[in-house]
């Protein structure tokens, strides 16, 4: 074959390259994004979740009262409308140990707003802490937990599943048996056991290894939530592994790693993403559940689960402090709903049967 025979003139080449760049095709991702945009419910869910993420990320920089500042009162104060009490002065930055970034954000807040803080728009709890602020700060825990599970799912789950599916045969058999074994461990008990253990040797562990309950909590979440992902991905890869484009890659001499990461993983990503939007709510609920049992996040830190605990403790037949329960529950419910709607929308948007149709 004469490769030189195909060469086009120099000017021609530049021109053609230019034109080719202009005629960029639409990737399946772009196509999916466009279709997701048309799904109004899913798109607004995505925007809502982005807002939640932004608010929780920049929580220290927002002019909210500190979630831990106690203001000893006899009972919880009901919500006040922003137009009646817009805000007050007297904010003091007292938090638990914050990270350096959060410390900077607090400094930024002090520089911009001074000691001004918002009023108790969503009321206060029995110890006079601002509910809005606690919800916002609590969302950080939920999102952190979600991120941890996502990361584990993606890194361990996808790689493990893809490798298992691609190698196939006995290796696959062995790898999947390992997953089965991990699956069969009753995790609730494991968590209870581990956390009691940590409580027992608390000081020792913290001083020597820097392991506290939160770390254990994240390790447990990480250990559980990649398993299903590994199975899902393995199933997908198993069905893709014998398709002709993988054969074609082998025939041109592609290595196993190349086939795995250039051809297989991008093709299972759509399923992975949809699956993630279903995992995240489950993880958030799991966190709330553990905290509710007293095994998760500890005061003074806040999480949505903790808010639910606090709220439910205040419920009594004589006086119902509804705002203690309704607002945290609404925050959690709307986030979970948004995640589910987004998951649904993503599944439709990434559906190969609808590809190319706008």
């Amino acid at each position, binding site marked *: 074959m004469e490769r030189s025979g195909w060469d086009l003139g120099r000017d021609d080449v530049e021109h053609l390259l230019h034109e080719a760049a202009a005629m960029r095709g639409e990737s399946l991702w772009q196509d999916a994004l466009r279709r997701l945009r048309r799904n109004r419910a899913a798109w607004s869910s995505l925007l809502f979740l982005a807002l939640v993420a932004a608010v929780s990320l920049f929580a220290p920089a927002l002019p909210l009262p500190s979630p831990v500042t106690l203001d000893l009162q006899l009972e919880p104060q009901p919500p006040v409308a922003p137009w009646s009490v817009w805000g007050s002065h007297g904010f003091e930055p007292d938090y638990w140990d914050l990270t350096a970034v959060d410390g900077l954000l607090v400094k930024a807040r002090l520089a911009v707003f001074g000691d001004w803080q918002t009023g108790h728009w969503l009321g206060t709890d029995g110890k006079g802490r601002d509910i809005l602020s606690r919800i916002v700060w609590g969302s950080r825990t939920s999102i952190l937990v979600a991120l941890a599970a996502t990361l584990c799912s993606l890194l361990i789950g996808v790689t493990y599943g893809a490798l298992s599916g691609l190698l196939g045969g006995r290796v696959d058999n062995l790898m999947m048996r390992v997953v089965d074994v991990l699956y069969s461990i009753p995790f609730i008990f494991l968590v209870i056991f581990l956390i009691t253990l940590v409580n027992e040797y608390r000081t020792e562990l913290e001083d020597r290894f820097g392991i506290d309950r939160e770390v254990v909590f994240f390790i447990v979440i990480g250990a559980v939530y990649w398993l299903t992902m590994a199975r899902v991905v393995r199933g997908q890869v198993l069905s893709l592994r014998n398709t002709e484009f993988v*054969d074609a890659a082998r025939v041109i001499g592609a290595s196993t790693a190349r086939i795995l990461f250039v051809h297989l993983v991008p093709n299972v990503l759509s399923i992975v993403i949809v699956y993630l939007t279903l995992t995240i709510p489950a993880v958030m609920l799991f966190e709330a559940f553990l905290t509710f049992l007293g095994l998760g996040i500890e005061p003074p830190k806040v999480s949505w689960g903790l808010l639910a605990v606090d709220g439910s403790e205040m419920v009594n037949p004589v006086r119902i402090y509804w705002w203690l329960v309704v607002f945290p529950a609404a925050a959690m419910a709307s986030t979970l709903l948004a995640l589910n709607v987004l998951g649904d929308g993503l599944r439709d948007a990434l559906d190969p049967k609808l590809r190319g149709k706008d």
Partner: protein
Amino acid sequence: MSSPPLLRVRDLAVHFPVGRRGLLGRPARHLKAVDGVSFDLERGESLGLVGESGCGKSTTARAIVGLQRASAGSVQLDGVELTGLDRRAWLPHRRRVQMIFQDPYASLDPRQTVGSILAEPLSIHGLAKPRRRKLEAMALLEAVGLNPRHVARYPHEFSGGQRQRIGIARALALEPELLICDEPVSALDVSIQAQIINLLDELRRRFGLAYLFIAHDLAVVRHLCERVAVMYLGRVVEDAERERLFASPRHPYTRALLSAVPVADPARERERRRTLLRGDVPSPLDPPGGCPFHPRCPEREAVEGDACAVSVPSLGRVGGGDDAACAHQSACHLDPTLE
């Protein structure tokens, strides 16, 4: 002695274990997908491998390019043994042997642009600098009759026929000498099929390619191949030059196959007599003893005794020129020239 043929396949066998029990159990039995296939392919020659589904023609092709491990036999490219090579050892030979696949919808990675599909073989073999690869991709598109400006598009933006052209361009990227075509037109509509056949024909002449063309459609093979080998149940039963095979087929199976193909001519369809075969192709898991074709053979009565049911006839010369390359071979007890 003359130089070895471009491709020499000798007694190639591919057996699949079936019914393995447990994790480490031994397979209960073997499915003999390919069972002793031999042929030669010269430089620039085009050999058609035809047969019905399950006859082992695709498995033969996959074994030749190393997608399937051969259980026995040898595959030699220019005298170099290919069976048993690992990926690294295969790599230099990949540039000489490439493959075109059947399903234009499954053979292109949907997440890659056409440009990166075509550049991938170049980058794996380190052929051309990254910037030049895009140009090479454009030149390849041009060579297969597509608009070179479409390099940045994705496979789903093309129709079936256009995708098959992209698959052909990918196979050409490494400038191979031998193209294995696994039913490249059978998934296409008639009008598009003709375009691709013409393209393959043109490319062969232009680049001096040799084809191993696998198909079930005899008319397509007649159009593209100078020599045809007919397979039945994992074996080659007849191997002859195009003119001889279509004008005077020797093996009863070839005759039946030729007579079964419908022709787009009502007058000829009305007057022609079909040799209807009895029954179905036997399962390769449980092949009949003796000649694999004997339970369905319409001419079995002509053979005296029960040789057909007892011994497997070997491929033997029944005519053709003196040159080995134009020999007409058939595997049937009916042929008096055979032992």
